[in-house]
C-alpha cells in the first residue's frame, strides 16, 4: 500500500510544480486522506516545512504515513490556534478533554514526528500530569509497558531505589 501511495504522490507532486498552486499544502495521512492546509500551518510543522524548503517549494503534497486521518485534524487544529496566538489554558484544557489516553500518546508521536515544539511540550505535560502520583503498575498500564523484570529483579531494584520510593502513596485505584 505504501508503494501505491508513493506513486500517487509522485504524480501529484509533478502536477503541482506550478508555483501558483503553492497556495495550499496537501498533507496526506497514513490512511490516504488528503488535508489541504494553508502554508502558515505547514510552517508550524518543522518536518513538513523543511521538506518544502528542501524542494524549493515545488512539492506541496506531503505524505505523512505515520499519522492517521483521525489524529491529523487535532494537530492542524492546534497549529491553527497557535498561529492565531490563541493557545490559552482554557483552549488546552478543552483540547485535552476530548482526548483519551491512546489519542494523547498518538498525538505525542505525531508532534514528535512533525517536530511541533509547542504541541510536543504541551502533550509531554499532559502525559506527565496523567501519570503524576500514580503507582508503577498504573504507569505501566498507562503506557502499555510490559514488565520484563523477574519478581526477584524488581524487588532488588526497589530495594536499591528505596531513596526514591520513600513516601510514595501506592495509589493504584485511580481510574482513567
Amino acid at each position, binding site marked *: 500500500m505504501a508503494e501505491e501511495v508513493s506513486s500517487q504522490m509522485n504524480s501529484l507532486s509533478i502536477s503541482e510544480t506550478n508555483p501558483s498552486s503553492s497556495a495550499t499544502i496537501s498533507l496526506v495521512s497514513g490512511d490516504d486522506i488528503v488535508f489541504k492546509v494553508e502554508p502558515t500551518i505547514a510552517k508550524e510543522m518543522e*518536518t513538513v516545512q523543511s521538506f518544502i524548503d528542501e524542494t524549493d517549494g515545488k512539492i506541496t503534497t506531503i*505524505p*505523512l504515513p505515520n499519522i492517521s486521518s483521525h489524529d491529523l485534524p487535532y494537530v492542524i487544529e492546534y497549529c491553527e490556534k497557535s498561529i492565531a496566538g490563541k493557545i490559552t489554558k482554557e483552549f488546552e484544557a478543552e483540547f485535552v478533554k476530548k482526548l483519551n489516553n491512546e489519542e494523547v500518546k498518538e498525538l505525542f508521536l505525531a508532534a514528535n514526528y512533525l517536530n511541533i515544539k509547542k504541541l*510536543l511540550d504541551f502533550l509531554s505535560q499532559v502525559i506527565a500530569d496523567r501519570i503524576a502520583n500514580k503507582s508503577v503498575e498504573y504507569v505501566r*498500564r498507562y503506557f502499555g509497558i510490559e514488565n*520484563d*523484570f523477574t519478581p526477584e529483579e524488581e524487588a532488588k531494584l526497589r530495594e536499591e531505589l528505596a531513596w526514591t520510593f520513600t513516601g510514595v502513596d501506592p495509589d493504584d485505584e485511580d481510574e482513567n
Partner: protein
Amino acid sequence: MAPSKQITPKPKTPKKQQQLAPAKKVRAPRKQPPAPAKKVRAPRKQPPAMKANQQQLSPGPDIISDLSDCILIHILSFMDAQEAVQTCILSKRWINVWKKLHTLTLLDYSELSGKLFEHFVFKFLSLRDDQTDIHSILLHPPFLRKECNKLVYHILKYAFSHHVQHLLINFICFKPNCFSFSSSTLKSLELTSDHLISGVISIFPNSLNFPALTTLSLSYFTFFSNEDGCAEPFSTFNMLNTLIIHHCQVLHKRHLCISNAKLENLSITMCYYMISRTYFEIELYAPSL
C-alpha cells in the same frame, strides 16, 4: 490504532523524500546515543488479572517505550524528579533513562522529612549521568530548612559545574558560600529567602560573575553598599533583561543603583515590615525600559 505509528518513518516518495528522515530527530540535538536495540519481549509474566486491567486502561500497544531516549527524557523533564526517577522500574528499557535527565525539579517536598529530602537530592545527583549537563534546578516552595545549608551549597556547586542555565531555589537563609560561584551559562536566577522565618538576613553580594544572566528575581534579600554609599549588585550583569526585586532592602539606608543598558522589565515591590523599616533611594539607569 494504525500499526504504522512508529517514530522512524521512511516515507516512500522518491528522491528528496528522504530529506524527511533527518528532521525526525526532532528536538534534542543528537547527544544521546541511539536507543539500545529493541530486545525481544520476554513471554508475558503477568497474571491474567493484571492483563485484564492493562487492557482496560491502555488497550493500545506500547508505542512510547520505542521512542528514542531523548524523547522519553523530554517527557520526564515535565515531571517531579522523584516521579521521574521512579520510571526506572517500569521495564528494562527505562532503567537508565532518568539518568540523562537535564532537570531537577522538586515541586513539593513537604512530605519528605529534611533528612529524606537531603538523601534524595544527594542520591539523584550522584547516580545521574555525570556527563549530562543539568539545565535547570527548580526547588519550589516550601522553603528548605535552615539545616540544609550544606545541601544547598552542594546543589549549587553541582549545578554550576554542570553548566546550569536556570536556577530557582527557596531557602530560608542563603549563606555567603552560596555565592562563591561564577557561571557563563546561567540565564535565569530566582532566589527566595525569608528572614521573617529565619531571623537572619540573606545578603546578595555585589559583582557576581554571571555574564549570561538575563533574568534575575530576588525576594527578601539584603544589599550591601560600596564605600561610596551605593549598592550596585547588578552592575556586572550586562545581559540583564528582566529584574524583579521583591521585599528587598539596602543596609544603612543607602542607595540602590540599577544600571543595566539592556534592562526591559523591572518590577520592584516594597514592604515596610522589613528589618530596617526604612526605604531607600533607587538610582535607575535603564535606557531600554
